[in-house]
């Protein structure tokens, strides 16, 4: 079914985070892109913007739906995927790779402990995703 890479962390709003030192790369999960359908547009913050845990940092739009993107962690945006505005379909085809959205520098790395593990996230989506 949906793939859930074991090495990533997850939120209940279907974002993933790849933690590397004090940096976290963030995107949406395979389950999320399946639910949304064809992604047509992604609105992302600028480099330097501050994001807060579980607050919206942007928007992902498909033809029939639109969803807020919730930051898994608090921090400052240090990188933004410049490919996404031109090729939003990458979110569908490669959500964990080329479909990454932002990289943040975490203001409190301990926050990562509050995220869901791959196993916990798998349980969540098996139960319907809510």
């Amino acid at each position, binding site marked *: 079914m949906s793939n859930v890479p074991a090495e990533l962390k997850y939120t209940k709003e279907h974002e993933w985070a790849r933690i590397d030192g004090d940096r976290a790369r963030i995107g949406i999960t395979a389950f999320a892109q399946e639910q949304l*359908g*064809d992604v*047509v*547009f992604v609105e992302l913050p600028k480099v330097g913007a501050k994001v807060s845990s579980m607050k919206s940092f942007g928007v992902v*739009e498909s*033809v029939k739906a639109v969803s807020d993107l919730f930051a898994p962690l608090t921090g400052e945006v240090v990188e933004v995927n410049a490919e996404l505005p031109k090729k*939003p379909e990458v979110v569908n085809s490669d959500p964990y790779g080329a479909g990454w959205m932002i990289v943040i520098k975490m203001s409190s790395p301990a926050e990562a402990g509050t995220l869901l593990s791959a196993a916990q996230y798998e349980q969540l989506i098996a139960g319907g995703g809510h």
Partner: protein
Amino acid sequence: MEARAPYDKLIFELSAPGRFAYSLPALDVPSADPASLVPAQFVRSTPPELPEVSEVDVIRHYSRLSLMNYGVDTHFYPLGSCTMKYNPKINEDMARLPGFLRLHPHTPATASQGALQLMWELARDLAEISGMDHVSLQPAAGAQGEFAGVLMIRAYHLSRGERRHKVLIPDSAHGTNPATTALAGFSVVQLKSDEAGEVDLADLERHLDEDVAAFMITQPNTLGLFESRIHQITEMCHAKGVQVYMDGANFNAILGITRPGDLGFDVCHFNLHKTFTTPHGGGGPGAGPVGIKAHLAPFLPTPVVVKEDEGGYALDWARPQSIGKLQAFWGNFGMLVRAYTYIRTMGPDGLRAVSDNAVLNANYILKRLEGDYDRATAGPCMHECVVSARRQKKLGVSATDIAKRLLDLGFYAPTTYFPLIVDEALMIEPTETESKETLDQFCDAMVQIAREAETDPHKIHEAPVTTPVRRLDQTLAARQPVLKWTRP
């Protein structure tokens, strides 16, 4: 759709330099060099890139385009909650009377008494139909009527020294309800519906407090059910000072049967382009008058059409507590004439017959379809019914597929995927102007499709095949928006 050579032109593609379709008078005042009258910086240096076509081009082009549309005049249009009933032609004639059509809004009141009288009488009639005390005809559409209603509620609470922040809305509500609420500065709290599809009273009780400004519901609701405990609901709300708003989209079910004013509602809006037959026009214009109880009268939008003691009519601007204005002038007068003409054509007995037959027709369809589609609710419906295509979805046929197949069978599709609380929803509102023969043809088609889903789903997936275009790429349109024609 009858077979016809396909037509795929835009007006710009018919343009030929030197062609023209206009007729303008010769200059009869002394001519002067325009440059001496209007400074050069304000005058276009190049003409706009607009078509150059003849009158024949114009007539032929737009006539051909019209043939690519399904309208109520040609097709059964069972869209739920849209009330696609017949648009009487007498309404069109009356709206075009020169004394109405050619009347400027700033014409002095003494010279527009006929227009003002029509508005005053229509407001009075809508007040009687709804059991409300006053009606404003200004809002340009249902969404504006909702906006006016919510703003008046806001003004009411503020006038009593209360600043409330929340509005309660059922999860079955139309999208304009939460959008309007947000626009008016409130936060939306969504309430659950119970198993029967009505408002969950326990959930309502839990959420009612003195920070709630209003509770908005559609009556009957978007499942076509009359909220039977409505008196209890309005009492519960009023006990906490919460105002109750009725979305009047489904008024076609209750004309002469019940009235929001008698059910405890404080505000309701009307969609003249639904119940009151003003034409949909391909998406508008509509008109969304709003009715209120007397305690909200100080907050009505300005101007208010009043009847003066001497018997004349006027626009009253002296309303210091008014919420303001929704549009520049006094209302979509052209649509008001149509609604007025309709109400006078029908009279009280006629309007009652409208709702009786609307309810009869919807229940007939529900009965004929219940063998093949899942009903969304038990018991009789009102003027519209909701079925689910979940059985068909298991076979790989979605509500969208069914809608497309119906186009081939000569029907416009019902509403799909609304209300959100029913999966693979098909919301069907036949209206009272359809005959039993048409309803039978539609139900035959729906049953046929249900069979095809079992035996030959490919046919449904390929649909539509008789329309000028088929299964358009919505993703491409949204990813790479092309929103205007450009010269290739």
